[in-house]
């Protein structure tokens, strides 16, 4: 699965920047993010033309003719062919508009969707799938008469058909709140809860996709996530994430993202912790690190990213502490695994370093045990090697080091002597205020718990490094205080 996906990814340099630009411009619109994946799909489609024929835009008369042929044709092949032609035409937004404006067209299509001719049914579903790709919410809303049938078919047995229905539903969900408002009372949550027990990997992946789109809706925290949490879906999702021979990476990716959308909405995370989310995700993290070491790394970051996010957010829940008064996630191997992943990100996907460091912060903030692990496993130096990557990464690395240092003298002694002080002198030369500010905090802790550091600091022109920032409003007070400490010490 991993290598197949990799092979299909197209060069993405401009695509990535375009995506970022769009996301920033439309910040309040969660919808925009989801549109992004569908919009780019359509823009690139004319270049693909892999089928050997470029679909033409269909006019009203042609749409009507194809529909009539599909409905009333005498030969089954002829009827199927008419729907295939219609489907190709529906790749064009203009044809989609023409279709929905034609009276009775959706009714006919729904009729074909529910016909007893299985192949016509399949082609009709493909036409609907084409319509679901539209960016216009009016087109999605025109598909409303079909949704009860799409949901009904989820409890059938034809896995290809179910997969198609799920992707269609997922696309329609993204596009229109009216569609979601209809799907919820129509029972989409119980339908998905039943469908998730399918043994077919392709169905599960499609279900994960549809569910992830549902969970990203802006009204999800109030209107959707509570009923999902009340269903058996969370338990099944966690089952799909358990490492072992049955773990399918493509399926796991989808459900990890679903979990992330649920968790970051903060509706009822203790419930998920009660279902064992922390230990499942912790074990999965170990598994991912193992995969990296075996260099089975194609597409691993796709799964690592949501797992890191889920773990990080779950660790902020008070419920984490309640089981025996200890943190549920205590295994030192988690830290080892995280660093293996950090190294992987450093080499392959530096933009994900902040996400890994976020987890490291949440692991170490309130845990003397994990801070001790960082020291005993010699992970301070590798951590320092990440400083040059970016300002965001620098601030996070320094924050983690502060987490260790603030635990007291026993911890600071292990940070001294070593590369820490020279590194701090280096980061004090940065221009970024946040990086410098965090460096000052760390320096303060080091001076407090390891007074010998002061002399060395002075000898290595530390005062000059400090004074560079004495005019900076956000840093002044701390610069002054440190200067006093150094001069008195």
């Amino acid at each position, binding site marked *: 699965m991993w290598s197949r996906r990799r092979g299909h990814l197209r060069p993405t340099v401009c695509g990535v920047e375009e995506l970022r630009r769009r996301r*920033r411009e439309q910040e309040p619109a969660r919808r925009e993010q989801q549109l992004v994946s569908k919009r780019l799909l359509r823009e690139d489609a004319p270049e693909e033309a892999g089928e050997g024929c470029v679909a033409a835009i269909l006019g009203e008369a042609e749409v009507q003719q194809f529909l009539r042929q599909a409905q009333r044709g005498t030969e089954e092949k002829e009827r199927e062919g008419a729907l295939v032609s219609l489907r190709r035409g529906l790749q064009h937004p203009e044809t989609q508009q023409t279709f929905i404006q034609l009276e009775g067209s959706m009714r006919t299509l729904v009729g074909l969707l529910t016909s007893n001719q299985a192949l016509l049914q399949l082609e009709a579903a493909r036409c609907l799938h084409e319509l679901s790709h539209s960016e216009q919410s009016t087109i999605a809303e025109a598909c409303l008469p079909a949704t009860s049938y799409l949901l009904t078919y989820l409890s059938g047995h034809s896995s290809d058909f179910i997969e198609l229905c799920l992707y269609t539903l997922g696309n329609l969900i993204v596009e229109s709140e009216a569609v979601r408002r209809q799907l919820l009372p129509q029972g989409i949550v119980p339908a998905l809860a039943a469908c998730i027990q399918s043994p077919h990997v392709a169905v599960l992946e499609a279900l994960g996709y549809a569910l992830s789109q549902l969970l990203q809706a802006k009204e999800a925290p109030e209107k959707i996530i509570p009923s999902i949490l009340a269903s058996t879906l969370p338990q099944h999702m966690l089952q799909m994430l358990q490492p072992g021979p049955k773990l399918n990476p493509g399926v796991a990716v989808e459900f990890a993202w679903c979990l992330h959308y649920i968790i970051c909405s903060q509706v009822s995370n203790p419930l998920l912790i009660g279902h064992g989310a922390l230990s499942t995700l912790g074990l999965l993290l170990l598994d991912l690190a193992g995969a990296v070491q075996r260099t089975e790394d194609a597409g691993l970051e796709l799964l690592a990213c949501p797992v890191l996010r889920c773990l990080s957010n779950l660790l902020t829940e008070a419920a984490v502490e309640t089981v025996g008064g200890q943190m549920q996630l205590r295994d030192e191997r988690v830290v080892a695994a995280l660093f293996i992943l950090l190294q992987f990100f450093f080499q392959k996907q530096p933009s994900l370093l902040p996400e890994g460091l976020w987890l490291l912060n949440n692991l170490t903030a309130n845990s003397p045990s994990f801070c001790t692990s960082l020291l005993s496993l010699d992970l301070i130096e590798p951590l320092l090697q990440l400083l040059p990557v970016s300002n965001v990464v620098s601030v996070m690395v320094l924050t983690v080091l502060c987490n260790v240092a603030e635990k007291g003298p026993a911890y600071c002694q292990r940070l001294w002597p070593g590369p820490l002080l020279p590194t701090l002198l280096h980061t004090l030369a940065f221009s970024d205020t946040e990086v410098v500010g965090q460096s000052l905090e760390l320096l303060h802790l080091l001076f407090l718990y390891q007074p010998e550091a002061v002399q060395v600091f002075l000898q290595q022109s530390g005062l000059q490094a400090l004074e560079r920032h004495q005019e900076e409003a956000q840093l002044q007070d701390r610069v002054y205080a440190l200067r006093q400490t150094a001069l008195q010490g």
Partner: protein
Amino acid sequence: MQLPPALCARLAAGPGVAEPLPVERDPAAGAAPFRFVARPVRFPREHEFFEDGDVQRHLYLQDVLMQVADAPEKPRVPAFACQVAGCCQVFDALDDYEHHYHTLHGNVCSFCKRAFPSGHLLDAHILEWHDSLFQILSERQDMYQCLVEGCTEKFKTSRDRKDHLVRIHLYPVDFRFDKPKKNRSPASAEVPGDSGERSEGEAMEICSEPVAASPAPAGERRTYSHRSVSKLFLKHVLNVCSVLRILGCTLGRCASHTEFRKVTLGKKIGFRFCRRRKSRCFRSCE
């Protein structure tokens, strides 16, 4: 980024918790102007921190959707016919046959040969159309189960259920898998009220409708030319039993009741198993 060599060994070794070094905080650590406090950080939905990872996710999805949108290249085989008795469909691709089989022969009612998209709908159909005991019970209590999975509401009549489906679940008024049964028994009070009523052979048919919707019921089309004699006989037996019961006939009552129950409801497990397979299989359950 260089990792210590022992790290991989640590990952491979068993679980363990590091014995923490003693914690000893000085109050001066948090004294102004210093403000560092060690705390776990939470990022809510839509936080800009997630931007880069979200972009990667969308690129991945884009790739997945592209693969789904392309209709699959079907590997062709020499033409073959469906093996189910009475079905004349011919195929030249295994995927097509698989879909055909699941759609038309997967959840088939052994009594009337209607095909249903799911076991759930088939169950409801059999109860409501072919179980005379159901009809009797429904006169005394709400028996018509809502068709939406997860909804436990029950209703007195199929009309009431349809109203519920439309009002509460926003189902279409002409939902094709909820046809009210045509009256056979003179004693039943239920009036099928669906304006889109069709004759029996058409639970999943719509093909003869014109493009501009018309309410006129389409002519009946049979997809199965074969009717097993034993099934017709069974149907008649059941109808006779139900009429006898209604008329309070005691003569055949116990025997016909027992026979009736055994055939329709008694052996639930065997019954369910069989009706999903070829129609002939039903006989072996008796």
